[in-house]
């Protein structure tokens, strides 16, 4: 009677084993990508700029480095393990990226086809990273500090509030109408009030980000707790569980999949509020940098900051996915979203 009915559930994660492509095709793809980057480098270095740009040489060197690295990596792809596998999968993207950078370069620096100063060439962005990185790092740190403080407070308060509403009828009676009234309101609508009600624009922004995060986390946690199978409570009660145990060890873990949906929604909302708050009041951070760069018509700085911002947001979302996959490993094979 010890047979496992569902043998596949114990098997390795279901990535179907793909056949390794034949060596020639592997080489061809890698070398083509490498050639594309080197070609982009040659185009940048050899075709003179329409107007002189400061960092054209450095930019071309960077392209050479990428192209060279690809050329060297190609023969070893087979032995690079997981990294090699990801690199192999990225080959089409690397090709298109080199092509796109070339087009961008030609349209801006070489032919001046796009109106300046609104469209900056790639080397202008590189210049920003090379020359203005201390300020960018400072802004990045300021943004992360503000975001994580607000998000952390919002997530924690949302979790506690959601569990309380889901658990206690009295709490639900008082909180639900409030939640229903202010929940749909975008957190940014509070901006003018927040900026004079709080002692500093920083604390006001923390409040706004916490609010934007807290509302979805509260609602989803609440719905998670409300949808817990009542039989789970019966089981725990017959085994001698206290109310505290029922909340912390039954309701909360059972609601976790819902909570994570709320955390993802809250994260997206917190990004929006962060940027607006930094543009409107806080005198630091990437949002402020964007605003400042626009004021000086430093469009290259804007693009550079935007790129950093995109990286940060996508990195944080990825991080949250990792945390979820770790905490909700038990869901593996049950549902995917």
């Amino acid at each position, binding site marked *: 009677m010890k047979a496992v009915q569902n043998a596949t559930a114990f098997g390795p994660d279901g990535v179907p084993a793909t056949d390794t492509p034949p060596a020639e095709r592997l080489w061809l793809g890698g070398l083509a990508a490498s050639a594309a980057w080197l070609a982009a480098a040659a185009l940048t270095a050899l075709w003179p700029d329409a107007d002189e740009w400061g960092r054209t040489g450095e930019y071309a060197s960077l392209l050479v480095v990428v192209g060279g690295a690809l050329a060297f990596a190609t023969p070893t792809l087979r032995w690079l393990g997981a990294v090699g596998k990801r690199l192999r999968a990225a080959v089409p993207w690397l090709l298109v990226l080199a092509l796109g950078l070339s087009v961008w370069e030609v349209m801006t620096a070489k032919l001046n086809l796009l109106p300046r100063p609104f469209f900056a060439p790639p080397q202008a962005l590189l210049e920003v990273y090379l020359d203005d990185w201390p300020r960018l790092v400072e802004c990045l740190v300021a943004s992360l500090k503000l975001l994580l403080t607000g998000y952390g407070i919002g997530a924690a308060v949302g979790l506690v509030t959601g569990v309380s509403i889901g658990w206690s009828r009295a709490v639900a009676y008082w909180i639900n109408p409030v939640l229903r009234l202010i929940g749909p309101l975008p957190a940014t609508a509070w901006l003018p009030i927040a900026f004079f009600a709080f002692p500093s624009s920083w604390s006001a922004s923390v409040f706004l980000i916490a609010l934007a995060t807290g509302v979805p986390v509260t609602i989803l946690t609440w719905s998670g707790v409300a949808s817990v199978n009542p*039989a789970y409570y019966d*089981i725990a009660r*017959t085994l001698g569980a206290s109310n505290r145990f029922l909340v912390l060890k039954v309701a909360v*873990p059972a609601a976790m999949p819902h909570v994570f949906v709320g955390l993802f929604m809250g994260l997206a909302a917190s990004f929006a509020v962060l940027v607006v708050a930094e543009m409107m009041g806080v005198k630091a951070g990437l949002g402020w940098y964007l605003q400042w760069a626009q004021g000086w018509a430093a469009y290259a700085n804007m693009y550079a900051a935007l790129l950093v911002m995109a990286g940060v947001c996508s990195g944080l979302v990825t991080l949250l996915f990792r945390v979820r996959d770790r905490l909700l490993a*038990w869901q*593996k*094979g049950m549902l995917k979203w």
Partner: protein
Amino acid sequence: MVALEQDRTAGLALEVQSVSHAFDLHGAPLPVLDDVSLRAEPGEFVALLGPSGCGKSTLLRQVAGLEPPRAGRLTADGAPIAGPHPSRVVVFQDPTLYPWRTVWDNVALGLEAQGRLKANRGRVEEALRLVGLDKFAKAYPHQLSGGMAQRAALARALVNDPRLLVLDEPLGKLDSLTRIAMQGEIVRLWRDAGFTALLVTHDVEEALLMATKVVVFSERPARIKAEIAIDRPYPRHRDDPVLVDLRHRVLELLGLAESW
């Protein structure tokens, strides 16, 4: 077969005294239990047999202390049942394992809830061995078959050394082969551990094979039609002529004599 050792306590005496119960259905009361009285002696295996939906499960929830009856009294060893207690453990029809816990952590649930887990970790392993799941301690519930999940639920109950094990159609959703095997296993566990067992079932054969006393219920509202003592040695056999006769009699009581 290893029995759970230490502080082994014999089964408790359960007494149900003229219990009646009704649900509210669209404002009108729907009676489900009508003046039910029965007694389970310590160590007895009592099967409650009746058509499905007759109210047996309601009676079990009252025995477990999950719901109070509208009228009547339930006592365990003479003391009124006021709420759930780990000495009276229920195994439900659905195993209802916590999907976020491994099998080991599911079985440890009761000890953890009572704050006794640290000193009793060995008993979790023992209970898992008892039901033949020691190799699956680290598996998650969704990786188990229906039979294995129900075994895990059984281990989760047994680890608490219950004095009364309440079984609410625990084999109802299993395939017939697993069912036959587990009927034998539950009887063996009961004989080894000495608890009182209360089994709700609508399977006549199951009741006759497992119980020392079968209580036959009527359709809803459930009323006791007959109490039949079964004085046959274990392990019992399906073709035992005494059991075959009893089966005939019980089916007749349930109004199904024609269909046999």
